[in-house]
């Protein structure tokens, strides 16, 4: 049974219970009716047969057309009739009996329409030895009256009981639904920002899971909101510094006066500051988009080919700093994932390696399959990281101390997020070959 959205649970329950109750009651009445009908028929048929037998025994002989004006000892008497035939001649009949035989069936029961238009139940019986034929009839209407009397006795109380029951049920259902009403009241009175758990006086067992999952949801939302708030605050914080730097450098350029070298330096710094702010904004947007949509794609991407493309894109940046960017991807390596997202991952990994390595450093990108797992490793010959710094990595906006390269730590957050989307593993270690930092991304083995 589908519950309409706007329908009240109480009305629904009430109508359901009342409907079923009426149905059951009516069913009982129907059964009683058929039962009673059967019993009454049996009983009265028995009486008819008994009466006929009595008549037959008493009719030794009689004169023709002897109309017995039988007294009416009972209110049902007019509904009863009889005929007695001797040698084919009607000898005795009741006052309300016709002259022709009541039924064409000479023996046994028959239901016939008589001349008065009424329906009668007739029992015929004959004594062949004395040639006596007896018919005893009874109007069926009187039987129906008895049956209907019984049914009325069942149905009439229902008429009175139903409204009373409806009232009582309404009250009972209302009582039963009180916890639900309390919950909706508590929820309705909450402030939009209120995310503390719902506390009710008494929670019925059935509602326990509801309240629990509701509270769990509130907790999740609260966590998410706190996270968002922190992120926004951190992002604003992180954006303020480059903007402050741009402003300071621009003012230095304005106030440089005759010092051309200082003005030149300040203007160059202003430009670099703008690039830095732009990169930060782009990273923030990427991260926000990543957090909005998990971007699950089941397409198969060749990691080797993609790494080659991204490396080619970044090679000019590397060459500008006399850094050598090497790619070791000899055989195709298929991984499942979104190509765009994989591109962002590769770009961030290689870009980070180039950015945090000094001029003339080596950066090596390696794509391989190790025991069924696709592995991407980016190594550099830069200064690397201490254990402590590695532990801090992944905290948003964490920067390694003493770096001349401005960064926000957002690149790493992006890498972490994408790796999570692919359910891959990322690991940071000391580069075994180049001595700097090695970042290894390991995809789950494909089965």
């Amino acid at each position, binding site marked *: 049974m589908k519950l309409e959205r706007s329908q009240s649970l109480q009305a629904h329950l009430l109508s359901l219970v009342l409907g079923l109750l009426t149905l059951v009651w009516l069913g009982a009445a129907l059964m009683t009716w058929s039962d009673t009908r059967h019993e009454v028929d049996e009983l009265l048929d028995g009486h008819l047969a008994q009466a006929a037998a009595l008549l037959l025994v008493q009719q030794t002989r009689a004169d023709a057309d002897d109309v017995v004006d039988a007294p009416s000892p009972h209110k049902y008497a007019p509904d009863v009739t009889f005929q007695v035939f001797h040698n084919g001649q009607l000898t005795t009949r009741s006052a309300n009996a016709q002259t022709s035989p009541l039924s064409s069936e000479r023996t046994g029961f028959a239901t016939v329409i008589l001349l008065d238009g009424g329906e009668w139940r007739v029992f015929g019986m004959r004594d062949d030895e004395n040639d006596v034929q007896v018919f005893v009839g009874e109007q069926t209407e009187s039987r129906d009256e008895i049956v209907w009397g019984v049914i009325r006795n069942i149905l009439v109380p229902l008429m009175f009981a139903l409204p009373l029951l409806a009232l009582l049920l309404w009250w009972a259902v209302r009582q039963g639904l009180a916890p639900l009403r309390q919950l909706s009241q508590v929820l309705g009175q909450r402030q939009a920002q209120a995310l503390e758990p719902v506390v009710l006086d008494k929670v019925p067992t059935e509602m326990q899971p509801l309240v629990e999952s509701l509270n769990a949801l509130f907790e999740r939302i609260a966590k998410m909101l706190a996270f968002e708030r922190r992120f926004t605050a951190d992002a*604003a914080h992180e954006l303020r510094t*480059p903007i*402050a*730097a741009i*402003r*300071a450098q621009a003012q*230095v350029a304005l106030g440089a006066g005759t010092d051309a070298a200082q003005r030149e330096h300040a203007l160059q*710094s202003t430009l670099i500051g703008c690039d830095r702010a732009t990169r930060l904004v782009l990273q923030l947007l990427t991260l926000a988009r990543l957090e909005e949509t998990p971007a699950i794609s089941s397409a198969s991407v060749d990691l080797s080919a993609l790494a080659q493309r991204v490396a080619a894109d970044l090679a000019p940046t590397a060459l500008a700093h006399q850094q050598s960017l090497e790619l070791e991807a000899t055989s195709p390596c298929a991984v499942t994932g979104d190509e765009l997202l994989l591109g962002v991952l590769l770009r961030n990994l290689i870009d980070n390696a180039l950015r945090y390595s000094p001029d003339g450093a080596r950066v090596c990108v390696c794509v391989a399959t190790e025991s069924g797992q696709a592995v991407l490793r980016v190594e550099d010959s830069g200064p690397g990281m201490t254990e402590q710094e590695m532990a801090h990595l992944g905290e948003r906006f964490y920067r390694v*101390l003493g770096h001349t390269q401005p960064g926000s730590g957002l690149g790493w957050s992006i890498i972490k997020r994408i790796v999570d989307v692919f359910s891959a593993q990322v690991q940071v270690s000391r580069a075994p070959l180049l001595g700097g930092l090695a970042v290894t991304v390991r995809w789950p083995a494909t089965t």
Partner: protein
Amino acid sequence: MRILLAEDDPMLGDGLRAGLRQLGFQVDWVRDGMAAERELLTGGYTAAVLDLGLPLKDGLHVLQALRARKNTTPVLVLTARDAVPDRIRGLDMGADDYVVKPVDLHELGARLRSLVRRSHGHVHDILRCGSVLLDPSARLVSMDGEPVLLSTREFDLLHALMLNAGRVLSREQLEQQLYSWGYEVESNAIEVHIHHLRRKLRADVIQTVRGVGYTLLRSREPA
């Protein structure tokens, strides 16, 4: 005025240092909280510009450590944390001023001058000692209403003496106030500047306390 700038962002630090130097401040720049604390406890700075999000030691902790050791160097907190609770916490922990990034260099300079003035108990921006007037923001000096042309060092020296009028400053203290890092200070530099000042102003403006240092007598007129 010698200022310690504690800022970990290379570009902002570079810009602030250059900008404050243009405004006539002597600026030393440190990039982490430990260095900031060490320098402030030993260096004799007129004031400090302190970023809060410093590596190794948070700016607020540096401030706390300074105040715990009775160091009263005026500190201007320069930070990107603009939430009201952050500001309150910063001021409660002993910051003398709280400025949110980005900041105008001239405003930063004005706030620093105001901090220094107040920390020396002066109410007015323009310092007065007898007939000598010194305007720190315009970097102008006059005597008996006539402008006096001073070099940067001479101005800074006179400024330091006027801020501390009535107190004797040693040669070392004056050197600390005048020179940021990286300057080779000649042993008689202060004497030379004092000599020039006396020539340009009046011989009796600056008193020598033999074996101790120099002082300006506090004027009788209300400061």
